[in-house]
Each structure stands twice: as C-alpha cells, then as structure tokens.
C-alpha cells in the first residue's frame, strides 16, 4: 500500500510537483463536491408528492448566468481549500460556500416551482447534499484546527443557530418540500418538538437525580459498586424498543389500579413508559462516571480539607464534587446526546416526540417527512454535544 511507503518519508516532500503542494484534504473535498455536482442532480423536482422525481442540474435550476456566478463562488472556495492552509481563511471560505449554496437552493426551488403551484415538490438532490457535506467537512476541519476556547465555541454555536433560524424564518426555504411538509404540520411540529425535548431533558434530569447519588454510593463502597453497576450494564443491552414495550405493562397496571398514578397521567401508552425507559438507559453512564470521578479525587486533597477542619459534608460539597464535576458532566453529555436520539423511539409507543414524523415518513415512504423529524433531532443532539463539551472543557481548564 502506498500509505506505508509514504509513512517513512517526511510529509509534504513526497514530490516536488505542483500537485504535491496542494492540500490533500482540500483535494479530496473538492473532488467530492465537483464529482457530485457533475454527476448528480442539484435539485429534484416532483409534480406532486408521489410522482417520480426529475433531476435538475445547476443550469436547469438557476439559469446559465446565475449558475456561472454560483460556480465562480464555489471555485473561489475550492481554491482556498486547495491552496491556503490558514484555518481562519478556510473557515471563512466554507461559510461563504454554505451561504451561497443556501441562496442557490432556496431561490432555485422557488424558480423551479410554477407560480401558485401548491403540489410541486422540490428537494435538494445528490449533488447539493454532497456539496453541503464537503463544505461542512471543510468548516469542521478548520474549526478543529483553530482550537477555539470553550466560550468562543459557545458563541460560534449561538451565532450559527441564530443565522440558521433567521434563514428559515425569512422564507428562503419555503418552496423546499421538507418545508412544505412542515407548513402543513406547523402546530403539531411545535408540540412534538417540545415533547421530544421534555422526554430527553426530563429523563436525563431524573437520571442525574437518581444516578449521581447512586454513583457516590458506588465510590464509597466496592460492594455496592459490584451490585449496582453490572445490573445497570445489563439494562443497557435490552433493545430500546423492547424496554419501551416492557414498561407499558406495569405502568398500565399502575394507572388502572392506583388513583394517584392515574392522576399523574401514568398510563400504559404515552410518555410515562418512554420517560421511564429513557431514564433507565441514562442511569449507567451517570452513575458510572460519578463513581469514576469521585474515585479519582486525590486522597491528599481530601486529607488536607479534613485537616483544615472541614466536615465530611463540606468535603463532599466543596472538594470532591467540584473536582469530579468534569467527569460527571462528561457522562451527562453522553446520555443527553444518546437520549435525544433514543427519544425518537417513543413515537412507537404513543409517547410523541419528533419520532412521530420519522415513523410516519417511513410508513409513507416520504423522505421529506422523515427529514422533518430526523433533522431537528440531529440538530438538537449536535447543540447538546457542543454545549456540554464546552462546559466540560471550561471546567477542566479552570484552576482547581
């Protein structure tokens, strides 16, 4: 394999030709985007929701003049990706590309749709998706190389979120089929999105309330640890749809026989079994990381605090928990991302959430409807991951 031979040579001196001076990641990304745009449609057009789709190239979509201008912008981005190694410049170029692409897709969809036609469906085609992938990878690589501080990362996330929301609010994408699906379900969408957040957030909050003390007990006593962690480990191997289903029976019984439970809205179907199942899944990482974090607190720190006359409770609150917090929060990050994804399954047992659209879409073979459920789920998980990573980083850097 060429890789192994190249491994022995110093990097970037493999050859002296012009090709060797090009950024190899940039080369890969430009090839990906150019290949995609050349061979796959930029947008697809369907006369109605169930008609067969027809691929539209850039020129079909935008007209020759605008398409040429768009390609010129992309060529500029490609040149930066190939030749400039400064992360800031590469990030700016990637963002420029994303902006140009958003305009091309949004206006292109509007121009393809005959005026007043409410049945036509326009969706991004393979070419547009590959271009977006290449641009996202370029931006991701630049961000990774920039190594932003936690605070700046949060600010960048907030900025990106604000621009995204503004772009969708402006009506730029209203002619895209996924937004058509949204328009006919706007009120339900809001409700299911809130339900989704409630399921994921509520289960993680419950898991912290139960799992953190459980983890602390595990850190105190190896015997408790030996009893608790293996059980939680086994819970994780139960497939999610089975666990959701298995909890329906006991909760239905509880709701039928106990008036207080019925008053709380506990029933066999709906949010209760979903919330309980998600909480159970989240317990292991929270408890295990709490035990790990507390176990790692240096004994000297605890001794010093005891020597200063702190009580056991004070030591826990002022020394041990703050020192263990980054590890505990790393566990919370894992379960929050995991539960935002798993909450889609709740729709299978009538628990609502964005999974409702995903499974409806699967049932109707309507990929736009699937996207309406899946894309916000991924976005939520992404935001949660970036935010908590930043918090964990910030705590880890803080002088203890």
């Amino acid at each position, binding site marked *: 394999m060429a890789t*192994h031979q190249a491994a022995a040579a110093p990097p970037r001196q493999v050859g002296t030709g012009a090709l060797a001076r090009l950024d190899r990641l940039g080369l890969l990304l430009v090839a990906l985007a150019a290949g995609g745009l050349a061979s796959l449609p930029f947008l697809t057009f369907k006369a109605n929701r169930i008609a067969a789709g027809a691929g539209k190239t850039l020129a079909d979509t935008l007209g020759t003049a605008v398409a040429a201008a768009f390609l010129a912008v992309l060529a500029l981005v490609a040149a930066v990706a190939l030749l400039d190694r400064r992360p800031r410049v590469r990030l700016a170029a990637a963002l420029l590309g994303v902006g140009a692409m958003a305009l091309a897709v949004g206006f292109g969809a509007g121009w393809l749709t005959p005026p007043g036609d409410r049945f036509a469906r326009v969706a991004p085609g393979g070419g547009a998706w590959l271009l977006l992938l290449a641009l996202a990878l370029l931006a991701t690589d630049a961000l990774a190389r920039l190594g932003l501080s936690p605070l700046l990362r949060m600010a960048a996330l907030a900025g990106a979120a604000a621009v995204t929301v503004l772009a969708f609010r402006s009506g730029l994408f209203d002619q895209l089929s996924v937004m058509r699906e949204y328009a006919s379900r706007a009120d339900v969408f809001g409700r299911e999105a809130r339900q989704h957040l409630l399921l994921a957030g509520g289960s993680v909050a419950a898991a912290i309330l139960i799992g953190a003390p459980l983890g602390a007990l595990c850190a105190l006593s190896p015997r408790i640890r030996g009893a608790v962690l293996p059980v939680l480990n086994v819970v994780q*191997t*139960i497939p*999610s749809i*089975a666990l959701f*289903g298995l909890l329906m029976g006991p909760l239905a019984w509880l709701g039928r026989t106990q008036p207080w439970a019925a008053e709380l809205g506990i029933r066999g179907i709906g949010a209760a079994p979903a919330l309980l199942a998600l909480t159970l899944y989240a317990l292991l990482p929270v408890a295990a990381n709490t035990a790990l974090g507390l176990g790692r607190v240096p004994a000297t720190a605890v001794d010093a605090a005891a020597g200063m006359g702190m009580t056991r409770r004070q030591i826990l609150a002022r020394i041990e928990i703050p020192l263990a917090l980054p590890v505990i929060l790393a566990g919370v990050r894992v379960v929050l991302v995991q539960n935002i994804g798993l909450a889609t399954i709740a729709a299978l047992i009538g628990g609502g959430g964005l999974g409702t659209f995903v499974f409806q879409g699967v049932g109707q073979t309507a990929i736009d409807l699937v996207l309406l459920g899946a894309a916000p789920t991924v976005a939520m*998980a992404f935001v949660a991951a970036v935010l908590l990573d930043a918090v964990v980083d910030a705590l880890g850097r803080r002088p203890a």
Partner: protein
Amino acid sequence: MSTMALAPRVVALVLLLAFLLAPQFFAPVFAPLTHNGAPPIYTQASLLDLAIAHLELVALATVGSAVVAIALGVLVTRRAGAEFLPLSRAIVNIGQTFPPVAVLAVAAPLVGFGQAPTLIALFVYGLLPIFENTLSGLQQVSAAVVESAKGAGMGGLQRLVKIELPLAAPQILEGVRLSTVIAIGTATIGSTVAAKGLGEVIIAGLLSDNTAFILQGGLVVGVMAVLIYDAMTALERIVLRRRGVRR
C-alpha cells in the same frame, strides 16, 4: 474465567438455545402475560430463523465497519494521513449525534425497505466506536517502542503489523465488541423498515398489545448481546495470551 463466573453463562446459553429450538415448551412461562387468549409464543416465523437472520445482519455490518474503521484509524495515524487526523476526530465526535433511527429512516426510502437500510445503519453506526478505539489504541503505543523497532531495522509496514497493531489490539477489540453489542440492539429497530430479525417479534407485540411477545423478543436479544460480548472477551484473552501479549 472461573467456574463461578462461567456457570450462569452456560445456563443462560442452554436456556437461550432451548427457547429458540423449542419455544412452545416455554408457553406456560409467557402465558400469564397475555390476555384474551392471545398466543403466548410468536409463531409467525421460526424464532431460530429470526435469530440467525438477526445475527447475520449484525455480523455482516460489524465486519464491514471493523475493516473500514481500522483501516481509517491506521491511515490517519500514519504520517501521510496526519492531515486528516483533526477532521476524523471531529467526525467521530459529531457522528455520535446522529441517532441510529435517523440513519435508518433516511436510508430506507433511498435504498428500499428490508435488510439493506438496516445494514447501512448498522455499518455506519458501528464505525464510530471501532475507529475511536483504534485511534486511541495506536496513539498510546509509546514512541520509544516504535523508535526501537525502527532502530532494529523494521520498515513502516512491519512496525505496524508486528508492533503497533498487537499493542493496540486490546483496545481495538474492545471497540469491536462495543460495536457488536450496539448493533445487536439496534438491529431490532430494523424491523420498523421490514428487515428480518428479532425486532419483528417485539414490534408484533407492540402492535397487538402482547407483552409476552415483547418480553421474549427483548430477552432473546438482551441475552444474546451479553453472551456474545462475554464470548468475544474470552476469545480475545485466549488469542492474545497465545500470541504472548499481556494486558
């Protein structure tokens, strides 16, 4: 593994096989969970066939992800691939925010219903743990060891195969095990897009409100996951011991 630890696993394996081969024999156990005379045992398809189809799907996907993820892990830790290291790390991090249901649901309308979208989802989702562990395993190989191998006249390929990969093996294999267990659980969701597997039993239970079906499907999948994880751990120990690698 001591007899103490082995005994419950053998019992679980025997029970699992007995249940898959002669499920009707267990009908009295599941009967209390049904009502209105619903069947206590899933009979639409043979449970053994479903279990085999389930494991086939998992094996195929996991082998695929292992080959690709280990190759990528090796690639980005070579000098020639170093340019791709920051990006690949970021992708691993972001990749985990894509829920398997989303991957499955997006793949289904594109490649058709059945095994194909499930295979894609399992493959994509299985890449991350293996890649991550390959990366950290290879990076933890001490530079001194690599240098001395270089001093002994080993070439890049030889160092990789004889020194780096064996030293990183425990961690890489942990990633493969993790992927396998995740895939066994995730494959059940494949039944929502009509893939053949044990999820079928669970979904049938959800649709007909039959707890017995949900429980038997869930138990078979859960027990298989635990047993397979343990078996892979044991196998790994034997192989590594034979090759003289100690943890």
